[in-house]
């Protein structure tokens, strides 16, 4: 194990010193806050692993981190380790928020260093300018503890200024507290048993870089070209993520070679997965990102040579690595972009959401010439599809089922149970119900049913369970009655509290029953439904009425390319109908329109000028189909 000063720091300084000396300097340097970045490098087997760093600020924190195991390693005697200092210019009053940083290092270095020793890895500590740390933090919303998010949305400069006023001790205290929180409650990083709750908030609550159009197709082809194998999803957040594909392995080995040549070049860092897992989860992604940025800024000059080598390797490869190569080949623009992103972090979101321009292709399902599927055919088709991972799903379900008696016990003790996780829990609950709840009064409420209300639930309790006849003035009265009736069964104190207990039951079962009620199930089926109902309704009408609707439909289709088409005003429509000898008074037309409206064939809307406009709430394709069919019939 040894400590290597980063080249950038070394060149800027021209000198390096051991950390104890640094401490003294820090002491003199007012509120200067330096960030010590500890980087773990190494490989587990043949698999290069994602980099992981710990950001530490204030010498005190460094000392605390390095306490039992690792401190010895920092002394120059052992393995010639050194830590580079930081020039005063870089400190220049820039002080990254302490509690921004702390989320990154809630791990204990002592533990890490043990691991480190076990695997014989290289420990690298390097000092990074505060700007870099700040950038790293602000680049990636997820690094911070959620609490700080709102603050960051404000001007970062003001933020920094404010922090300067806080004394070091307070910061340290705060770090400690936050660390405490993260360690105990947050992230569940350490050893959440079988489930993967280890993903920290950072991955979920992060900002997104703007997407290019056609990205999805690219990704898909990437996936498709390596059938049956793992494929790296190269999203733009992972510019330099070490990947598991053979290609990327090659690439990195190439760059490693380059590293050996120039000896100083080290921008790829890897760490054992388990180790990384032990570290703060939120910092994961951001690490790789900022690593990238750091390498950009630090290695610009000497990078060219290496870069050529790398890109040579890349040229040999096929399309999949194109995206990966892209950030590497245009370094300076990327850096600029990074700086822009720092300032535009928040605006970006609003920009993306305010612009009416949407960068997607204009293709529609209509052009696909697909037969539209209704619910039945959908089910039939899905039954034909081969079920995947049956054994694993069964295993998962059995795990959950083993908890049944525990649930029962807890239900009896006055707790309520919440199940969460991906996948339908209906079957699981059904099984629980049939196996254990047979002997007790229970009510199944299907919350996914679109028309469910509190009242209907309460009604079913009073009417069907308690055999109560009659209505109630308000749900609250009803509740009172229910409580009274259940008093013999329930403990008074317990019924007021829910006492939720959370159980993770990720089942991966398809939400078949649940989604069948979402009638918004995309255009595929709603189209066919609409068409059949359209013809059905209109066939029961008089020829005149059909004519009226045709007229409206034709006008509607004529204007389909007009985005500001408000609909046909009633007066115009009446005029047209009269001309076609379909109606003789506006009363008859109104009566007809009422009938249409009842069947949801048309919709009326009042325009800004108070005129009534008529619209057909059916999509144009269906309408065209309908008109064609009508023409055939006539």
């Amino acid at each position, binding site marked *: 194990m040894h400590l290597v000063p980063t080249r950038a720091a070394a060149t800027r300084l021209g000198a390096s010193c051991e950390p104890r000396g640094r401490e003294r300097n820090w002491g003199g340097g007012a509120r200067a806050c330096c960030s010590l970045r500890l980087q773990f490098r190494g490989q587990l087997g043949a*698999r290069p692993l994602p980099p992981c760093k710990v950001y530490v600020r204030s010498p005190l924190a460094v000392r605390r981190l390095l306490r039992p195991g690792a401190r010895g390693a920092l002394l120059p005697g052992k393995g010639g380790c050194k830590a580079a200092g930081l020039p005063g210019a870089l400190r220049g009053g820039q002080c990254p928020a302490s509690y921004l940083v702390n989320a990154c290092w809630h791990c204990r270095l002592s533990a890490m260093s043990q691991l480190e020793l076990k695997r014989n890895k290289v420990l690298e500590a390097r000092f990074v300018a505060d700007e870099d740390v700040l950038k790293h933090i602000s680049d990636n919303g997820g690094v911070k503890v959620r609490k700080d998010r709102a603050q960051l949305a404000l001007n970062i400069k003001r933020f920094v200024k404010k922090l300067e006023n806080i004394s070091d001790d307070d910061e340290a205290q705060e770090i400690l507290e936050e660390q405490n929180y993260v360690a105990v409650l947050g992230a569940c990083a350490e050893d959440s048993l079988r489930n993967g709750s280890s993903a920290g908030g950072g991955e979920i609550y992060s900002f997104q870089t703007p997407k290019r159009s056609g990205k*999805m197709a690219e990704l898909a082809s990437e996936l498709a070209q390596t059938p049956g194998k793992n494929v790296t999803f190269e999203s733009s957040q992972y510019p330099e993520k070490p990947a598991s594909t053979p290609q990327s392995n090659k690439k990195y080995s190439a760059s490693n070679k380059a590293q050996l040549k120039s000896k100083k070049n080290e921008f790829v860092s890897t760490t054992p997965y388990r180790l990384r897992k032990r570290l703060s989860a939120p910092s994961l992604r951001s690490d790789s990102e900022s690593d990238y940025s750091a390498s950009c800024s630090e290695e610009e000059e000497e990078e060219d040579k290496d870069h050529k080598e790398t890109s040579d390797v890349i040229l040999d490869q096929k399309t999949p690595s194109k995206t990966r190569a892209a950030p590497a080949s245009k370094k300076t623009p990327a850096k600029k972009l990074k700086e822009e992103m720092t300032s535009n972090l928040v605006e970006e979101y609003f920009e993306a959401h305010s612009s009416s321009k949407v960068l997607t292709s204009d293709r529609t399902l*209509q052009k696909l010439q697909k037969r539209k599927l209704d619910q039945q055919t959908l089910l039939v088709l899905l039954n034909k599809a081969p079920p995947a991972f049956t054994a694993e799903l069964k295993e998962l379900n059995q795990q959950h089922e083993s908890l049944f008696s525990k649930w029962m016990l807890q239900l009896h003790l006055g707790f309520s149970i919440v199940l969460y996780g991906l996948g339908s829990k209906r079957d699981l609950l059904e099984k629980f119900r049939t196996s254990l709840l047979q002997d007790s009064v229970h009510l199944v409420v299907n919350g996914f049913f679109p028309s469910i209300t509190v009242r209907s639930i309460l009604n079913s309790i009073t009417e069907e369970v308690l055999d109560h006849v009659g209505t109630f003035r308000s749900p609250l009265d009803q509740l009172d009655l229910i409580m009274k009736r259940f008093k013999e069964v329930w403990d008074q104190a317990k019924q007021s509290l829910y006492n939720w207990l959370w159980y993770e039951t990720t089942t991966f079962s398809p939400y078949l029953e649940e989604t069948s009620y979402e009638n918004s199930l*995309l255009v595929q089926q709603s189209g066919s439904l609409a068409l059949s109902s359209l013809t059905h309704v209109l066939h029961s009408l008089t020829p005149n009425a059909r004519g009226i609707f045709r007229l409206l439909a034709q006008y509607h289709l004529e204007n389909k390319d007009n985005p500001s088409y408000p609909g046909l005003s009633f007066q115009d429509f009446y005029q047209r109908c009269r001309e076609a000898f379909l109606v003789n008074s506006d009363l008859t037309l109104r009566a007809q329109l009422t009938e249409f409206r009842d069947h949801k064939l048309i919709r009326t809307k009042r325009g800004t000028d108070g005129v009534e406009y008529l619209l057909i709430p059916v999509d144009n394709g269906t309408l065209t189909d309908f008109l064609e069919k009508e023409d055939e019939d006539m």
Partner: protein
Amino acid sequence: MNEDRFPFQPLSSFLMKKTDYFSQGKNDSEDSGLRFASCQLLWKQINSETEKIQEELNKQLFDNLIRFLRQSHSEFQTKTTEWMCRMKSSEIPTAALVLGVNVTDHDVTFKSLSEVLQDNVTPYVVSLQAKECPGIKHLLQKLMGQLMDCYVDADSSEEEECVNISQKKIRCSMASLSKWYENVTKKTGSETPSKKRTSSSRHWQSPPVVVIFKDMEIISSQHIHEFPLVLIFGIATSPMIIHRLLPHSVSSLLCIELFQSLSCKEHLATVIDKLLLTTQFPFKLSEKVLQVLINIFLYHDFSVQNFIKGFQLSIVEHFYSQPLSVLCCQLLEAKKRVTSLSHNQCENIRSLPSFRRYVESQVSEKQIALLTEDSFLKEVTQTLLEDLHIYHENYFTVLRCLHVFTTSLPKYPLGKQIRELHCACLGKSVWETEEYESAIQLLRMLAKDELVAILQKCAEIFISPSGKQFSNTVEKLEEFLARFQNLEEANEVQDVSVSSQKELQKKTDLYHLQKTLLALKESKRSKKLTKFEMLRFEVVDFIDSLVRSYLAPAEMQTLNEVVYFNTANTLREHLNAAPRIALHTALNNPYCYLKNQTLKSDVGCISNTAPDICIVYKLHLECGRLINLVDWLEAFSTVVTAVEGTDPEAVATDQVDEIIHARFIRAVSELELLGFIKPSKQKTDHVARLTWGGC
């Protein structure tokens, strides 16, 4: 299926006993019945203890409130100073109860408050909640209803009549209310207590409530002569809120008096002190579990109730999962139970890590005996349990003593609250931590007055009944105190000698002066310790030795697993779950759940054999705000067909397999159900993303 709810009537009302569920889960259902019984017993005890604590804490507040209520309508009662009464009566006496932000706890407080009021002041207590009264009509209805009910309770003979009234009265008004009140008082004549209280209403800061109260108060102020009304507001934030929510015209009608309840932090401190830092209950929480509970309290809800619920959960979990928890009861009982342990349970003891450590530290003959003979093991277990008990007794006393010391330090290196200190000591050897070192450093700099005061407090702690074994310590402390006393006298003497020295110096010549100055300098450098400093060192060292011998971490104690609940993970998972993270993980890394090798992938990658929904999710992450369904479908089918090994050329010709199409529809509607996308009207065949970011 087109019904959204199904009630199920059991064929028989026979309920399975809880014990059965308790035993069913575990394969080795060792002593499950006994375990469950002791679990229930323990919880009962703890629950009653918490209630007692709550009662005690609220006592003062309630006493004040009751006094206020009695006073407020004394004019009405006596009718002596009619003029004064008239002046005052236009105002409604109001008590504003500032309760703090732990809203979840308030239910209990209010319930006990109305009980107390009903017992002590008046039968007519109405308790209203903001959520129960969406409008003025509801409020009055509720008010009437509760009043009538109260009346029914008070006078059961007239029950029927009253029920009729309340059912008929759909339209209630303030007038009818006062009429009813007259009725009641007339009926009961002079017998009813002449002080009548009503309406203890509570409201949280929700704007609709304001309207209700505004109306009510305007109306009621006219009736105040006939109808003695007292309002009690529950306030979560600050009393200023009354003035902000109610217009001046209303608040001027209120005669508000403030009452401050105990803060939830103090409440928690008492609860911890009474429940955890005592040997009264055998069950203990380990450091991590306690941390989880405290953090939920501090960072999430400030609810003592929830803290206690979490505590209950840990009790249940402990007794459920640890077969040896059967020994987690009072010492005498536990000793009895040890003798009747089965062989399996003995094996369980042998497999405890702490017991193994203990065995390893023994001589080899004893080791063999411990591992082979059950009877010997039981004997040893009894003594070990006793040791554990003694350890706890000592631990808590010394902990309190150390706490007295550390709270006097600047910046509280070991925490201000005793719970922080407790956590620090539970987890690891506290004397090895840096915080402890700095605390000791600071202790060595204490002024004498402080030190003496602290020592006196410590002596009190040690003398108190729990610290019987500490007679030596008490002696020692008293000796220290005596020596400090002596020092004081000695100091004065020293001062005199110093001043005389100074006088001497004046008279010497230059040479001598130089010499003495040099000597002084010399002595300054070596800086001999004064007597006081020496004594101070001695005291600190003594405390240090106490800490080292008694505050050893619980994990090091043999058989600690019996009484300590330490699976903090379970607790955290159940109380502070992260459903969004679970969802995210399942979608991004299905391998976490489906342990299939083909799914194994690195972070940020996903196998293309993953479940459909994962692939669809991953693809949708690549898109911006809107997603073109056709592109999405095509991308999906590209991936899926590649897996199945069909000719990729078929994809290009827009011929998407129907089955794949169906699978796509299912996956997309699942994402819609989960709330990741929603249909969009903005562009044909597009859906809108509802999340921003992701990876």
